[in-house]
C-alpha cells in the first residue's frame, strides 16, 4: 500500500521540483531544486528495485552535479539581468 502511494507521490514531486527549477529566476535556488529532484529520482529508482542506479544517481546527480552547478553560478551573477 505504502509502496503504491510512494509510486504516485514521488513522480509528482519529481515533476514539481523540475518545474520549480525551470521557473525560478534565482539560479542558485534552481540548482538546489535540481538537487532535490535528483534525490527524489534516486528514491524512485530504489523503489523501482534498481538500487544500483539509485546509488549512482544519489552520488552523481544530487551531490557532484550540484557542486559543479553551484561553483559555476558562483562565477556568474545569481540573477538573470534584465536587458
Amino acid at each position, binding site marked *: 500500500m505504502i509502496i503504491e502511494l510512494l509510486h504516485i507521490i514521488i513522480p509528482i514531486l519529481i515533476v514539481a521540483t523540475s518545474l520549480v527549477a525551470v521557473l525560478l529566476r534565482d539560479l542558485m535556488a534552481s540548482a538546489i531544486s535540481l538537487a532535490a529532484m535528483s534525490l527524489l529520482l534516486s528514491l524512485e529508482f530504489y523503489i523501482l528495485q534498481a538500487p544500483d542506479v539509485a*546509488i549512482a544517481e544519489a*552520488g*552523481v546527480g544530487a551531490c557532484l552535479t550540484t*557542486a*559543479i552547478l553551484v561553483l559555476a553560478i558562483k562565477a556568474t551573477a545569481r540573477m538573470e539581468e534584465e536587458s
Partner: protein
Amino acid sequence: MMSKIVKTIAGISFPFITIYGLYVIAHGHLTPGGGFQGGAIVASGLILLLVAYGTDWIIEKIKESHLSILESLGALGFIGVAFLGLIFGGMFFTNFIAGTSMLFGGIPTSTAANINTGGTLPLMNFAVGLKVIAGLFAIVLVMAYAISKEEGE
C-alpha cells in the same frame, strides 16, 4: 570559506562518507553498486571538504597533476587486468582468478556473501573506483580553483 559549524560537521561526516564509499567499492561484486558508485560517493565526501574548507586549503594538500596520475593508474589497472586475462585465460577480460586458490578466487554463492570471491571483478572495481574518485574530484577541483583565481584577480 564557511562557518565553523559547517566545517565541524563536514569534518565529522567525511570519514563516514569515505568508509561507506569504500564499502560500496569493495562489495561491488556482491551488493548493488561498484567501482563507479562507490567512487562517486568518496568523491562527494572530498567535495564536501572542498566546499567547507575552501579551495586554497585543499590545493595545499593535493595537486591536480597528482589526481590525473591517479586517474591514469586506475584506468591502467582496469585495462591491465583485462590484458592479464588475455595472457592467463586466453581471451580478453577473462576472469582467470575465479575458481583458483588466489585472493578473491572463490565463486560467489547465493547463500553466503563472502567477500573473498569474484575473481577479477573486485580488482576491476578497485581500479574503476580509483579512477572515478580521482577523475570526479579533479573536475570539481579544477573548476573551483579557476573560479577562486578569477575572484582573486
